[in-house]
């Protein structure tokens, strides 16, 4: 029995295994539900003490743009949650440089501290994961 697993028996082989999980975000927020769903799963994953990272590629970079005010469209503004990830020990946020530039954005336009990576560096980050979950 283990407190960590909520009382569920896990055999010794699997208990305590830490895998590298990357959540790959490629959709803009609000127009579809993908960005919010990804964030929900990321927060769940934080409870399992895994090695979690987030990647923002293509329109996914729009998820972390500063100054989102959603009152006018009657939807929840979930962008402040990205700033809370640090509190869950999720500190690896990678942003694709080409995607930022194609949208006229720079690191200063983002609401959270990130590492901006060129294509080769982003490719390496993806390749080193055990699991990549795509949204």
């Amino acid at each position, binding site marked *: 029995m283990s407190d960590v697993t909520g009382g569920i028996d896990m055999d010794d082989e699997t208990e305590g295994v830490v895998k590298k999980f990357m959540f790959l975000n490629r*959709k*803009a*927020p*609000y*127009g*579809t539900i993908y960005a919010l769903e990804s964030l929900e799963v990321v927060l769940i994953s934080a409870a399992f003490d895994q090695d979690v990272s987030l990647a923002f590629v*293509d*329109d996914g970079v*729009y998820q972390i*743009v*500063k*100054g*989102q*005010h*959603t*009152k*006018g*469209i009657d*939807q929840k*503004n979930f*962008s402040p949650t990205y700033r809370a990830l640090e509190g869950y020990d999720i500190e690896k946020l990678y942003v694709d440089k080409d995607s930022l530039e*194609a*949208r*006229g*954005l720079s690191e200063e336009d983002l609401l959270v501290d990130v590492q901006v990576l060129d294509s080769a560096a982003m490719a390496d980050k993806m390749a080193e994961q055990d699991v990549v979950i795509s949204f």
Partner: protein
Amino acid sequence: MLHIVNKSPLERNAVDTCLRLATKGSAVLLIEDAVYAATKGSAVSAKVQAAMANLKVYALAPDMEARGVAGRVMEGVNLVDYNGFVDLVAEHNNCQSWL
């Protein structure tokens, strides 16, 4: 005719095809994820800017504000609210929604 587009210009080609097929003097209203097409400095800005020579381009302000891009509106784009959206639909003979 009023053309209404709701897909990001950097993910889908709806904005592209709309601009290509809209006749001179038509209106294009960008809503939801298509409002990114109304921002300056992007890879599609030049194409939208050029299209404004023949078309009137509108963007829904609440959708720009939600996405944090209200401060990046391209020159020449007219911002409208929901009432303005209704007015545009009412004052045009027909509408085309690009899904």
